[in-house]
């Protein structure tokens, strides 16, 4: 059955990438776009079929194995698996990638390097698809790094902008810190278990080969990798900066590929975390902290894409929180839903940016509601969805996570979750009102948006509305196939649902009060709470702190080493050169053509010989 050969999913985008990159100078731009779309389209077609089979046939859980190479007698396999989580991810990645590519036809129109752009997008999709079907840690790491590389290439796609260049470097370096954690974890696992195969490792965990402190260490190191990739608290700074890339790329990174990889990794290797209470608690608290922390930053940011970026960091923290309290199902579900509505929000934001002639500052926007329904309605759907208003998709997934937290009995985390929900609703509607409500600040003509962008927005809007029903507790038993991963027993109690929706509504109400009914009162509030406002606006000075702690101290070390190299090492080198030159100069000074000099040299040579031979007799 071809659709269940897992390796076909990354194959087609990869072929498209190779074709595009090889023929980028000869291929017509239109043709390049079509080739890329065909590549991802075929993958998406297979993914739809696979998901269909997964829901209604329950017949696709399977793995395929090919020998790759062997180290010291241990064979390494190219190993793929199609289990429910993988299928969900394939569907999400291929769908979002396809829509982003369609959208990019409009957004990137006229860019000279559009062929390269599509090539990178294809490679990005291909690596992410490869990552989500891998059943082998080494393979996962391989694709993991490819994803990192692609995000580097795409964030820095407009490399002629210095900010984009800096952001690309920052993304690459900061995620690398996490990658090292993952790499060490992989080595440790191989040392203890002797295999990269996920099933073998799971077996080892179950049978107690890998346990105790080693298991905790491994789990936390893997989580460090996920922290880097998914922009969790200490390593989150690259994600907002990555907004310098083209907006479709932001959508792809935030919704489906790069940051999803971290959450997916934790979900996929959850059996490692299950065995260690410490690791789980770490994941939960880091996630919870990140969720609240990023949400408070998002409240004061003025760049439309940055608000969304911090919102992503916050939502990812929410997912990690869900993982940490033991619910892979809830987090994966939220990952899926978040993929839909965050892609929608980003693409809509991109459309807003295009419509306003590349203006990103929300203080200069306003009044778009009347001018373009094609922009405002999808954006509103996204906002409602992320705020968790029923019946939009975010409502269901958020509730699952909150329910999972409640079941774990950690009251403080539940409070964080509800608070985050409140902040999320507040900053999303602050964004919405500033962009769409009020009067237009400038009377500039609104750029029309192209049909390809409208199509993408519409599809994602539909998914954002109805996505949640796929796992609505009352759906048919078949849905369990996809969602059977640690499915929670029972439903969330009504008071929890009520308080979650209540928190959201409160947030929306506050935003409405501050930005619609009492316009301008927000500025006054900011002035009165200027200390808090500054903390949030400056993002808790994390960037400055890193700059001071790491960059400056490393620079000092580098400065010292540079001096050492220049003066000590270089000094020795120069001294050797100078010595040789001096000997040469001395030699050429002797060869001055005057016989008396020659005689003198002979005399000195003779004296040396004479004195050394007769020394004993001279002093005796």
């Amino acid at each position, binding site marked *: 059955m071809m659709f269940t050969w897992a390796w076909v999913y990354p194959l087609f985008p990869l072929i498209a990438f190779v074709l595009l990159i090889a023929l980028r100078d000869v291929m017509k731009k239109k043709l390049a776009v079509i080739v890329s779309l065909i590549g991802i389209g075929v993958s998406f077609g297979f993914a739809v079929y696979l998901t269909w089979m997964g829901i209604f046939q329950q017949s696709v859980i399977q793995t395929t194995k090919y020998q790759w190479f062997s180290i010291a007698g241990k064979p390494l396999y190219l190993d793929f698996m199609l289990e429910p989580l993988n299928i969900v991810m394939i569907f999400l990645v291929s769908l979002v990638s396809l829509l982003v590519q369609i959208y990019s036809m409009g957004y990137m129109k006229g860019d000279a390097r559009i062929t390269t752009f599509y090539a990178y997008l294809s490679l990005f999709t291909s690596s992410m698809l490869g990552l989500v079907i891998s059943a082998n840690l080494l393979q996962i790491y391989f694709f993991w790094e490819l994803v990192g590389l692609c995000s580097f290439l795409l964030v820095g796609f407009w490399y002629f902008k210095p900010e984009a260049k800096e952001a690309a470097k920052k993304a690459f370096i900061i995620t690398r810190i996490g990658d090292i954690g993952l790499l060490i974890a992989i080595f440790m696992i191989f040392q203890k278990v002797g295999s990269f195969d996920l099933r073998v490792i799971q077996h080892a965990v179950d049978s107690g080969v890998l346990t105790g402190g080693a298991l905790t260490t491994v789990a936390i190191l893997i989580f460090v990798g996920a922290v880097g990739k998914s922009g969790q608290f200490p390593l989150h700074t690259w994600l907002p900066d990555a907004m310098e890339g083209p907006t479709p790329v932001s959508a792809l990174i935030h919704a489906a590929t790069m940051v999803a990889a971290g959450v997916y990794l934790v979900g996929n290797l959850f059996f490692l975390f299950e065995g260690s209470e410490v690791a789980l608690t770490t994941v939960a608290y880091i996630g919870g902290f990140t969720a609240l922390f990023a949400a408070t930053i998002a409240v004061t940011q003025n760049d439309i894409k940055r608000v969304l970026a911090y919102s992503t960091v916050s939502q990812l923290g929410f997912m990690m929180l869900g993982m940490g309290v033991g619910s892979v199902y809830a987090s994966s579900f939220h990952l899926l839903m978040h993929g839909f509505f965050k892609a929608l929000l980003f693409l809509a934001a991109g459309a807003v940016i295009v419509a306003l002639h590349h203006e990103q500052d929300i203080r200069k926007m306003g009044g778009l509601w009347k001018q373009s329904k094609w922009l405002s309605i999808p954006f509103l759907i996204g906002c409602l969805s992320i705020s968790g208003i029923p019946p939009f998709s975010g409502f269901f997934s958020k509730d699952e996570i909150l329910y999972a937290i409640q079941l774990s009995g950690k009251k403080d985390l539940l409070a964080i979750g509800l608070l985050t929900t409140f902040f999320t609703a507040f900053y999303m509607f602050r964004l919405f009102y500033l962009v769409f409500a009020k009067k237009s600040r400038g009377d500039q003509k609104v750029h029309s948006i192209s049909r390809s962008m409208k199509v993408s927005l519409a599809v994602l809007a539909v998914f954002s509305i109805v996505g949640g029903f796929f796992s609505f507790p009352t759906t048919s038993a078949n849905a369990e196939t996809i969602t059977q991963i640690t499915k929670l027993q029972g439903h969330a109690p009504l008071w929890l649902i009520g308080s979650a929706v209540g928190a959201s509504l409160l947030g929306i109400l506050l935003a409405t009060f501050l930005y619609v009914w009492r316009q301008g009162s927000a500025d006054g509030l900011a002035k009165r709470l200027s200390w808090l406002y500054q903390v949030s606006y400056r993002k808790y000075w994390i960037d400055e702190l890193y700059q001071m702690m790491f960059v400056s101290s490393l620079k000092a070390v580098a400065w010292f080493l540079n001096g050492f190299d220049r003066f000590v090492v270089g000094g020795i080198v120069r001294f050797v050169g100078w010595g040789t030159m001096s000997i040469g100069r001395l030699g050429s000074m002797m060869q001055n053509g005057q016989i008396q000099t020659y005689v*003198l040299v002979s*005399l000195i040579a003779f*004296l040396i010989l004479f004195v050394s031979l007769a020394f004993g007799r001279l002093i005796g």
Partner: protein
Amino acid sequence: MEITGEFIAFFILSVLAICGAVFMIFFTNVVHMGVSMAFTFLSIAGIYFLLNADFLAVIQIMVYTGAISILMLFGIMMTRHKETEEKLNRPIHYWLSIAGAGVLLVSLVLLSRGATFVSDSVDTKGYGIAKIGELFFGTYMIPFELASILLLVALIGSIIMAKKEGQE
């Protein structure tokens, strides 16, 4: 050490010889240098007398004090471009030369003082011209002839080289 006639003579002669040589070094007028050198050669002839080398002493007076000194004076006069000799422009070279010469002198003197030479006085009755003549025309026959050839070659060579070029 007893004061003998030989010692006094040696003392005076050697002082004369050394003074002549030292003056040669320190004079600035080139002709004066030549003259003081002639005195040195004359003193050396005296030393030869002290060493029972009468024939050699006479030869020394004739060849060095006479011929070569005159030859050099002629050379000086024929090539003269400056009245006085100037010091070298290269101080490093100058002082290195002095130092090297000094080291050489010290080591030579040290060596000759430390060396042991058996005979202090010897029978010198046979040291006469007749004996030298015998040696020249007996043992050193071939070197003697070669020396005459050398002189002939030097004579012809000097004439050819000193002749103006183009005067065939």
